[in-house]
């Protein structure tokens, strides 16, 4: 089996399928640039998480040391019959109750208790997390961008009947404005429809080729548009 199947005499069906097969394509320059940029951004996240973990580790060690010190203190206080003024676990809990702070265990109490002078607050003490802060802009801009995309395409769709040329212009505007948009196939369907209505069937077919190249919903819709006119 040292020769290609096509050279060895593959069955007719196989020959037909493999005849026009294309080798995998190379990464384009724009794809490479985007990939590089995304990787640069992503490599910062583990750094932040690592720093958080390191801080958490340090705090844990400190709280353990503090807790063991306070246990020794309590035990020492108990053996002498409980001296006046020596803080015990019970007194710490009582102070916490008075300031509105909840104590769940010895160690967290040592690190999360606010100073006595601090005003009592209704909100629980925030816990330290080893997670990088959420990138608010990225999260918030996503739905906004999707809404903007949908609005632009809706405008384009509304123009299909009266002015297909305007619809095509708006579709191209979407293409330029939302390079990483989520409604790319929808835009393509509008553009194909507009081209067909403008009598540019060749261009419509060319534009439909990627959609027709893969089975699914968009394949069927593109076929319907091309068949309808």
């Amino acid at each position: 089996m040292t020769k290609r199947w096509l050279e060895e005499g593959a069955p007719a069906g196989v020959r037909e399928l493999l005849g026009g097969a294309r080798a995998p394509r190379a990464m384009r320059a724009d794809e490479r640039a985007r990939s590089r940029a995304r990787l640069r951004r992503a490599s910062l996240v583990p750094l932040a998480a690592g720093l958080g973990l390191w801080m958490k580790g340090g705090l844990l060690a400190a709280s353990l040391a503090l807790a063991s010190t306070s246990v020794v203190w309590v035990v020492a206080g108990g053996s002498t019959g409980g001296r006046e003024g020596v803080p015990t676990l019970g007194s710490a809990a009582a102070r916490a109750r008075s300031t509105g702070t909840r104590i769940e265990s010895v160690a967290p109490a040592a690190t999360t208790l606010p100073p006595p002078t601090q005003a009592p607050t209704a909100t629980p003490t925030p816990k330290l997390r080893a997670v990088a802060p959420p990138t608010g802009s990225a999260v918030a801009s996503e739905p906004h961008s999707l809404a903007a995309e949908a609005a632009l395409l809706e405008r384009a769709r509304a123009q299909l009947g009266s002015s297909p040329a305007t619809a095509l212009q708006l579709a191209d505007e979407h293409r330029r404005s939302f390079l990483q948009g989520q409604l790319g196939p929808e835009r393509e369907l509008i553009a194909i429809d507009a081209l067909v209505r403008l009598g540019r069937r060749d261009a419509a077919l060319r534009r439909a080729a990627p959609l027709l190249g893969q089975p699914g919903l968009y394949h069927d819709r593109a076929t319907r548009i091309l068949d309808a006119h």
Partner: protein
Amino acid sequence: MNLKALPSLFGFRRTAPAESGEAFVRRAHEAHGDFVFRTLQRFGVRDADLEDMTQEVFMVVLRKWHTYDREVKMTTWLYGIAMRVAAGQRRRAWVRREEPTSELPHETDEASPESALVAARRAQALEEVLGALDVDARAIFVMFEIEGLSAQEIGDVAGIPVGTVYSRLHYARKKFEQAAELRRRREERGTP
């Protein structure tokens, strides 16, 4: 006593301690980004998902760079990661019945719209049949039958012996022929 052998005696890999994870990934991306991109296509990742999956491969590299054994070719290591990423994506796509939603290519090399259409339909048919192969067999089949790589070259890339390349190729051809036959019968019956 050979001091250089000490790390392997204690089970450590020969990594690049002088290099940071970030620098390692950047170097791997510059040198082999295109290889990963092509390899993902060999495993059947669709054009619409290629950028995301390439990113996912390099995110794995960022997490696992310290486990890289320098005695293994970088491309072989990346090939293994890309295969797992592609297999995972195929499982997820199967569960969600995903539709492609990202940017689609607009340009084709075909001279006329009709030939572009014929080429697109042929590519779709080939994709359907290749989809019947598992990712590993598919990649070997694509490299040998479509890209024209030799068994030795494929073995080097995938990190497997030449004999294994041939046995997987044999299996892939069998599966491909069965899937092509099934597709032909479906078309004759006129069922999708």
